[in-house]
């Protein structure tokens, strides 16, 4: 079903590998059912038995949200400078190389301009498989450029988040990306251009505490983990187990921080309908 595929060769290689190693069946982590992979693909990577939304990569996301056909990827060549020359148990530079090798991406984000039910949009999608979708200088810059394109061309901006938060290995540089993107969103807001934030599993830390929570509409997929502090850190702080469903989409909806929780199948039509409402008059 994924019509949107990059053309670079190393990506195709990794796709082939995935088919071989993952086999034809997948187990649902929620209901423990074994599902035929083709059924899963045909069902938007949502478990046909229990509606568990599986994590999907950025290409699949783009295929689901945009009209089939021409979609222009932009700002795809940006790479991290490793501003702190960071090394923990591994060199950050090596982590970056490994992530690029396994995902075929330069960083945890992809910008694309395409159409949604015929309406032109700028779409920025995070790649969770790239160092946990963490936000460093490149993610900050690429999302900011998507927003600036939205302002310049008066095109609605949609950002799909899937991230563990700020990228520790870029230290305070990554922290400042929160301010940078939020400042760009202030300009987008002043230009009267729609901004829709889509929160998917997981959206936590500095990503939630900046652009993910600043949409004209904040829409989440069902069951996504969404929060600022991680559940384990909270448990350590309060010294007790967290209640069932804490920091999940439905919980945030109930507490008033999401505008809607929308099934992956319905996401495109929900956003499309919102864009009609928000069209510039």
């Amino acid at each position, binding site marked *: 079903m994924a019509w949107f595929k990059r053309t670079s060769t190393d990506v195709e290689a990794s796709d082939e590998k995935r088919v071989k190693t993952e086999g034809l069946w997948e187990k649902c982590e929620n209901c423990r059912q074994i599902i035929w992979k083709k059924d899963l693909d045909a069902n938007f990577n949502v478990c046909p038995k229990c509606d568990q939304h599986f994590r999907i990569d950025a290409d699949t996301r783009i295929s689901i949200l945009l009209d089939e056909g021409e979609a222009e990827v932009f700002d795809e060549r940006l790479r991290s400078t490793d501003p702190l020359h960071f090394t923990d148990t591994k060199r950050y530079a090596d982590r970056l190389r490994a992530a690029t090798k396994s995902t075929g991406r330069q960083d945890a984000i992809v910008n694309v301009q395409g159409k949604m039910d015929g309406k032109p949009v700028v779409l920025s999608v995070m790649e969770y498989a790239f160092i946990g979708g963490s936000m460093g200088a*490149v993610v900050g810059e690429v999302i900011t450029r998507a927003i600036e394109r939205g302002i310049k061309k008066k095109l609605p901006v949609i950002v799909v988040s899937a991230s563990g938060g700020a990228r520790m290995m870029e230290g305070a540089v990554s922290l400042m990306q929160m301010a940078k993107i939020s400042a760009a969103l202030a300009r987008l807001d002043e230009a009267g251009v729609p901004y829709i934030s889509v929160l998917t599993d997981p959206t936590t830390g500095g990503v939630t505490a900046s652009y993910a*929570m600043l949409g004209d509409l904040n829409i989440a997929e069902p069951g996504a983990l969404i929060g600022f502090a991680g559940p384990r850190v*909270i448990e350590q702080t309060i010294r007790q187990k967290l209640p069932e469903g804490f920091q999940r989409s439905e919980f945030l909806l109930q507490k008033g921080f999401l505008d809607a929780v929308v099934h992956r199948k319905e996401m495109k039509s929900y956003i499309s309908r919102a864009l009609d409402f928000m069209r510039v008059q």
Partner: protein
Amino acid sequence: MDPSIKAQQNLESLEKQIERLKGFAGGNQDAIDQLQGLLEKVEAIRGQISVMSAWKRTELARHPQRPYTLEYIEKIFTHWSEIHGDRAYGDDPAILCGMARFLGEDVMVIGHQKGKDTKMKVYRNFGMPNPEGYRKALRTMKLAEKFKRPIFTFVDTPGAYPGLGAEERGQAEAIARNLREMARLRVPIVTTITGEGGSGGALAIAVADRVLMMENSVYSVISPEGCASIMWRDATKKEVAAQALKITAPEMKELGLIDDIIPEPGDGAHSDPDTAAENVAEALARHLHDLKSKSAEQLVDERYTKFRNMGQFFTE
């Protein structure tokens, strides 16, 4: 003795000599040469101090006797009148807001507040805000904007409070909103990191025209302990993590993420709070003076450009 403290003492004795020499140097060439030599020595020592270990600075930034926001308010401002509450849920004692006067001018002051004794530490939640704190801060910032008053913020927090209630009441949304709204406030904003600049809880009141760090303050995306336990899976690696994260004022300046460094007296701000406050006041006056020459549009544009340009990248 700690080498950095020794360096600091050397520096002080040299500075005293310089002052004395300046007094009677006049046109005396020998005295001028001697003065030149001393100034060079001072520069060299300052260099040594700036590489003082990141962990040492973290400890100084967290020093129990370090002056907190209220002390700076008492020493630098007059006519302090506190403003409480977020008009939605409650009042957060971890963030103070209030009207004050700075050199006779009405200003808004906002800052994290830690407690000195156990009872007050708990009351102030160790300086870790709940969402109400950020919302109160934003509310008072908008008040300042309405009446065209400059805003001073003081940052000293381990970070946002990782509690159940803070999550339930949307701390992510509260922080995010502050970042966006501060970016477009039409009045001058000067932020001083006085102690710990802990991640999102710090940044939520720090999207400013000028961000100043005190010499022994730290500013970080995660605490050294947190980073150590995640990246090294060993919390005792905190000193290595502190170094790796580049959290000190000189490093933050080098990275282009802050605008100025405020020198601290003696062994750190706690050793001489009066002088520390004088240094802060001097820096605030200087930066505010600068900012007041700019129009609201210019302020907002330059603030945007500053944050817009943070973070470099390669383009292939």
